[in-house]
């Protein structure tokens, strides 16, 4: 009897030691969570899905290389904001309060981002935004891996004026982003001595653009600047082509990228121009490698665009910031996440600490022959400091 007790006692002690040793080791494995609040339905899911794929590839590569802070894996908590600012706010609160994430990645629309920003401020959690937008945000808690008008429109408009003529027509969705872009465009067109012959806005979900197309045809414009991303934009381009206007007026479609190749026929997409930080057909080693890695992970038909790169870049930068800060203290991470330079898909790009905006390498792309090809490589673009004259909140 006593022998049994002793044996039992020794075994328990032994097990206890094992558990104690494993304990801290297991705690080391506790994942570091990143919240992802992107639209996976409701209209902007083509961009949301790209963001998810970019982030996932980054997380997998980081974890394969040993994770962060001595072995802890990164984990994404993915929530669908349904392209609705109200839902975006709810999901942001959920990932911050319930899942205790160290940062929130997303969203897509400026409307959702403006709605989520107060949440990020209130709970002191960094918001990592990776979509091209209208510029002007200056906030300690928001990081923007985005092209703003100073990156794209500032260079594209003079190019269009030089190549095709100085008269522009602007047609966009009726909400903040297109309105602010129009403001920026008016300034840029004014600077080069061009003329804006018409501005029009449209509600969401219009199916028949015939009256508007008529107006554009009559206006004498050389270039149409289309600020209608997503399915409605495809409808517009389709109808525009059907009315025979494609040969007469050039289209610059904001936020158009490789997704357009899936939705439009080569005839419909032919000749549309865009200005982006990355296109999949770039002939640079880092671009080819990025596209290849995406296809390996998600399949050969995967669409790879600038949005994939930006979200990948944001996760990579977050990882660096966490390592630099040496802890999961969100304030320290925010302080560490400035002046980081990475190469993702198109040369070295830098996140500035002063205003949390990017120095990017831009290209002008043209849809031709059913593909999005490089028309002109613009090289590095340094935008003005977005926090100049503003108090950083």
């Amino acid at each position, binding site marked *: 009897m006593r022998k049994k007790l002793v044996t039992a006692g020794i075994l328990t002690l032994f097990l206890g030691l094992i558990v104690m040793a494993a304990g801290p080791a297991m705690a080391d494995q506790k994942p570091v969570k990143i919240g992802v609040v992107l639209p996976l339905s409701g209209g902007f899911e083509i961009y949301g899905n790209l963001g998810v794929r970019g982030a996932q590839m980054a997380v997998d590569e980081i974890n394969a290389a040993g994770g962060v802070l001595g072995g802890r894996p990164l984990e994404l908590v993915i929530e669908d904001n349904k392209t609705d600012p109200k839902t975006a*706010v709810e999901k942001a609160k959920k990932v911050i309060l319930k899942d205790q994430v160290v940062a929130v990645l997303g969203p897509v629309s400026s409307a959702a981002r403006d709605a989520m920003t107060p949440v990020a401020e209130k709970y002191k959690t960094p918001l990592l935004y990776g979509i091209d937008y209208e510029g002007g945000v200056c906030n300690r808690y928001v990081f923007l891996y985005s092209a703003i008008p100073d990156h794209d429109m500032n260079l594209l408009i003079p190019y269009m004026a030089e190549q095709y003529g100085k008269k522009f027509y602007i047609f966009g969705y009726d909400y903040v982003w297109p309105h602010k872009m129009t403001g920026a465009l008016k300034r840029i067109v004014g600077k080069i001595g061009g003329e804006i012959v018409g501005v029009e806005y449209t509600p969401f979900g219009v199916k028949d653009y015939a009256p508007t197309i008529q107006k554009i045809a009559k206006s004498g414009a050389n270039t149409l600047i289309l600020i209608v991303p997503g399915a409605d934009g495809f409808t517009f381009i389709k109808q525009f082509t059907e009315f025979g206007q494609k040969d007469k007026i050039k289209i610059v479609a904001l936020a158009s990228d490789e997704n357009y190749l899936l939705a439009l026929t080569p005839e419909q997409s032919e000749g549309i121009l865009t200005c982006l930080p990355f296109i999949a057909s770039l002939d640079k080693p880092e671009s080819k490698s990025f596209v290849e890695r995406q296809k390996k992970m998600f399949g050969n038909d995967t669409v790879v665009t600038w949005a994939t790169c930006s979200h990948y870049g944001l996760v990579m930068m977050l990882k660096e910031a966490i390592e630099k800060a040496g802890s999961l203290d969100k304030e320290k991470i925010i302080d560490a996440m400035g002046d980081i330079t990475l190469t993702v898909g198109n040369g070295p790009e830098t996140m500035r600490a002063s205003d949390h905006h990017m120095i990017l390498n831009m290209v002008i792309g043209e849809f031709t022959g059913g593909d999005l090809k490089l028309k002109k490589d613009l090289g590095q673009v340094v935008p003005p400091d977005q926090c100049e004259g503003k108090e950083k909140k």
Partner: protein
Amino acid sequence: MDKTNSAPRISRSAAVFAVLFAALALTPLSGDLYLLTQLTQLLVYGIFAMSLSLIWGHVGILCFGQAIFFGLGGYIMALVTKGMVPGMTGWLASSCSGLILAIFVTVFFALALGYFLFYGRLSGPYLGIVTLAISVLMERIAVNWYYIGGYNGLTSVPALNFFGFELLDPNELYYFILASAAAMYLFCRGVVISPFGRVLAAIKNNEERAEYFGYNTAQYKIKVFAISAGVAAFSGALFATVAEFVSPTIVGFGLSTEALIWVALGGREVLLASFLGALTVRALEAFLSDILTYYWILILGLFLILCVTLFPQGLFGRLLADRPKS
């Protein structure tokens, strides 16, 4: 049924009310902050559901645009407390005046709308479609009106602030909302069991007959429409401070029809049943929509059909209705 020597019987609804609100009062003890913030918002939706039950379940007016009033209340609260209403600054830009203005303006709007609708002899299905069109229209206006935020809406709506006492602590906010819900329930219940309410029940039962008895049914309908709008506006104003955010979606068609579903599923004829309907459906949605995603809405549609055809009293209606007085 010998009534003389038995103790006064507590009505079923009073008992359910007491139990329900006591249970809700105990939830902060769980310490789960996320649960608390979610529940706070659910309670606000519950008040909204009760406003719809008031006109639909108790009078038979099917309004496809109840969110118009909810949204109006929310926007007014947001505009006033953010100091965006010209002329209203300083102490006028406080929560109190926000709430008062939200309710008053919306009630006034509802009275005007009521005159427009009910005196035109619009009834039943026509009313449904017209209120539907109006809510779509209001959402479009909200999206296009730049000053009130357009598609983006308004963010950073300040927290409730009563004479310097700011309700920032989630627990305090929760209890305030809970108390408001209780108060609104008692108010609506008061309307329902009053003589005014009895005429409404008669109208629901058979409007022509009520008219033959000499009641000006249009007047009654307009009044209850305005009361219901006021309750909805109150809940909308609370929503603005709880969510700290208003946008055109709270004024439009989507939220209106969601509310109809909560009330239909919960039990339109009993206030507490509608209240519970809102809480249950939304809670289930938060819980299940991650797992079931697209299928969840499908199931909801199916339930709607079942409730409308087979269970007009909803899930909780039968349980919570008072026993008829003998």
